[in-house]
């Protein structure tokens, strides 16, 4: 992370509302608790000593319950709420020192924003809404139209440009909000609970669309949410806020597995792990493998030694070629075949290390074999079905990784469904003797 350029740097930002903000600030710095300070001064301490950096192209999620200060914090990034003290650097420049005019230019060119309740202009058409930032930037009408139309097309609203926001569904309205933010080509996107007002189905759709868009747009996104599952799904890194303070910053897995305190731990308890943990966190060392050039006889020997009914056939360098099943190997041995190639089936469902556990369930259920985890063609691990089930049940991938290995199941690598296959293995042994 250190060698990356930081799009946003926030350093010791405080935001205190109210008349006695100076006194409140002093008390906070002396280490008084927020409640005590608010009671003594009548001020509202929305953000207390927030520091973080957001890398270029990163989705940085700020998560917390209502009243945790997250919406205020995101508004300090474009100075809609100027910080009471502290520095906000965008591309290296401390924007708290900018003149109003330069600040407006920055908002027009570099930072755009998407709002929880969309913040659309009801008296302007969808196109005019999308054009807003460009109109502020005083672009000629023709260019405005072209760019706004591009943005609307990007979010899938082509054909709606002459409608009014009130005629659109919630999900579509937020797409207008997104188009308005994208049309200015700003590098930084602030999204304040952008999907929270949408119903769950539409929310999921919008999350997927955002991830998809981000793959091509590579914006720096600061995303505010109170929904942990959303945070874990979208965030490259997540900052957890409580009572105005950031209590932990880390990746989804870090926050799940090493919660910084009881609050975060309680918070993450209900998270759907299958949507956070990835194949790489539960996969095991592949043992049931054989080099392609070794041939059927060697394959049969390996199967017997490792007590498995199938082998992953690999090239040197562990490139996955396919899978060889015990009965095919046996037939090949009987017919005197010297190569594994004719009996190697390349039609194996594979997954990548960053596939979510939730997405492993279907391939795992459909396959008799442990799921091979392939990274760039290379076999990096396998996930037997028991391992996957145990990981989802206990929620502790660490415990699972060695759990099944203890009773030999992992080594066996045979999912329960293949148990009827064991007599065949016995047959194979007979044949080879």
């Amino acid at each position, binding site marked *: 992370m250190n060698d990356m350029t930081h799009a946003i740097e926030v350093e010791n930002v405080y935001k205190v509302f109210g008349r006695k903000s100076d006194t409140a600030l002093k008390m906070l710095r002396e280490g008084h608790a927020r409640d005590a300070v608010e009671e003594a001064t009548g001020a509202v301490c929305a953000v207390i000593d927030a520091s973080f950096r957001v890398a270029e192209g990163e989705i940085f999620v700020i998560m917390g319950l209502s009243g945790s200060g997250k919406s205020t914090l995101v508004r300090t990034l474009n100075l809609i709420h100027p910080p009471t003290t502290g520095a906000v650097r965008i591309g290296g420049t401390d924007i708290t020192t900018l003149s109003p005019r330069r600040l*407006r230019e920055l908002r027009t*060119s570099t930072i755009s924003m998407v*709002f929880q309740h969309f*913040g659309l202009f009801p*008296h302007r058409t969808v196109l005019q809404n999308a054009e807003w*930032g460009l109109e*502020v*930037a005083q672009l000629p009408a023709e260019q405005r139209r072209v760019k706004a139309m591009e943005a609307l097309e990007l979010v899938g609203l082509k054909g709606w440009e002459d409608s009014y926001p009130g005629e659109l569904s919630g999900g579509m309205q937020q797409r207008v909000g997104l188009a308005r933010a994208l049309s*200015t080509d700003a590098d930084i996107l602030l999204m304040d609970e952008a999907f929270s007002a949408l119903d769950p189905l539409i929310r999921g759709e919008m999350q997927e669309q955002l991830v998809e868009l981000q793959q091509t747009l590579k914006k720096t996104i600061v995303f505010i949410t109170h929904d942990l599952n959303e945070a874990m799904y979208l965030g490259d890194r997540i900052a957890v806020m409580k009572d105005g303070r950031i209590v932990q910053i880390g990746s989804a897995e870090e926050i799940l597995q090493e919660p910084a305190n009881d609050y975060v731990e309680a918070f993450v308890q209900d998270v759907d792990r299958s949507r956070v943990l990835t194949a790489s966190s539960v996969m095991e060392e592949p043992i049931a493998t054989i080099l392609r050039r070794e041939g059927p006889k060697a394959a049969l020997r390996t199967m017997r030694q490792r007590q498995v009914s199938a082998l992953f056939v690999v090239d040197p360098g562990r490139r996955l070629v396919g899978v060889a099943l015990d009965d095919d190997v046996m037939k090949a041995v009987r017919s005197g075949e010297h190569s594994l190639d004719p009996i190697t089936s390349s039609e194996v469902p594979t997954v990548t290390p960053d596939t979510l556990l939730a997405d492993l369930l279907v391939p795992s259920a459909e396959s008799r074999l442990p799921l091979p985890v392939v990274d760039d063609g290379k076999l990096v691990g396998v996930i037997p079905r028991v391992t996957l089930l145990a990981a989802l049940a206990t929620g502790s991938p660490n415990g699972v990784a060695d759990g099944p290995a203890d009773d030999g199941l992992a080594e066996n690598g045979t999912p329960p469904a293949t148990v009827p296959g064991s007599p065949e293995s016995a047959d194979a042994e007979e044949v080879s003797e």
Partner: protein
Amino acid sequence: MDLNGLPRVPVGDWVDAGVDWLTDNLTWLFDGVSAFMSALVGWLEAALLFPPALVVVVAFAAIGLLVRSWKFGLFTLASFALIVSMSMWEAAMSTLSLVLVASLITVAIGVPFGILAARNNGFSTFVRPVLDFMQTMPSFVYLIPAIVFFGIGKVPGVVATIVFSMPPAVRLTELGLRQVDKEVVEAGEAFGASPSRILTRIQVPLALPTIMAGVNQVIMLALSMVVIAGIVGAGGLGAMVFRGVTRLDVGLGFEGGLSVVILAIFLDRITSAFGERASKRTSR
């Protein structure tokens, strides 16, 4: 009179002194304002009375038809024709021009004050009691200094009307602007719009239905005040009603009053139609 031992506070004397000072020192200003207003009212009145009455009646009916519906156009045609045949037409047009000029000036002053009040909490708290005072002070009282400053005639009527009908213009403008969704205003800011652009492109258009309701109130109040102003020689329907009262002529008083009602209905329906149009556009 028994003051229960309290000293007599000469509030009246102070006001008299203030009014004297103003008449002595600001005559040039009052003369200017007077000339401007009487020119404006006179010009509008002349324009309304220049064509034959029936032509103007048809023109008003056309406005009613275009702005609302054919039914309202028909109503306007019939009711304005009634004013003509009650021989109240000249008085009605005189009153109408007085109301329109007074309302125009009221809105021109009141809306900017409302905008200021919406943007500045200090100004808002200062202006609130002043508006309360203006609205609750018996309206006749405004006529006295108005006569002192501007003499007898149309101008004191206009001035008293402006003072009396100002509060809703300021209040409803402030309310309308404050009611604009905070997030929508933030959306304006977040894209780098200047405060004046946010005001003219977002806040005022979205507050327009409420502002128009204010304008409607202003016109209604102006109409009610204009009748009272008839007493001080502002002429028009007010003078007709006043004459009916002093001569105990029920018929004349009723004819004048009915004409006022017809004007009121017309102005109310037309301005509220504009308000409805604005709200249709903003709530879509």
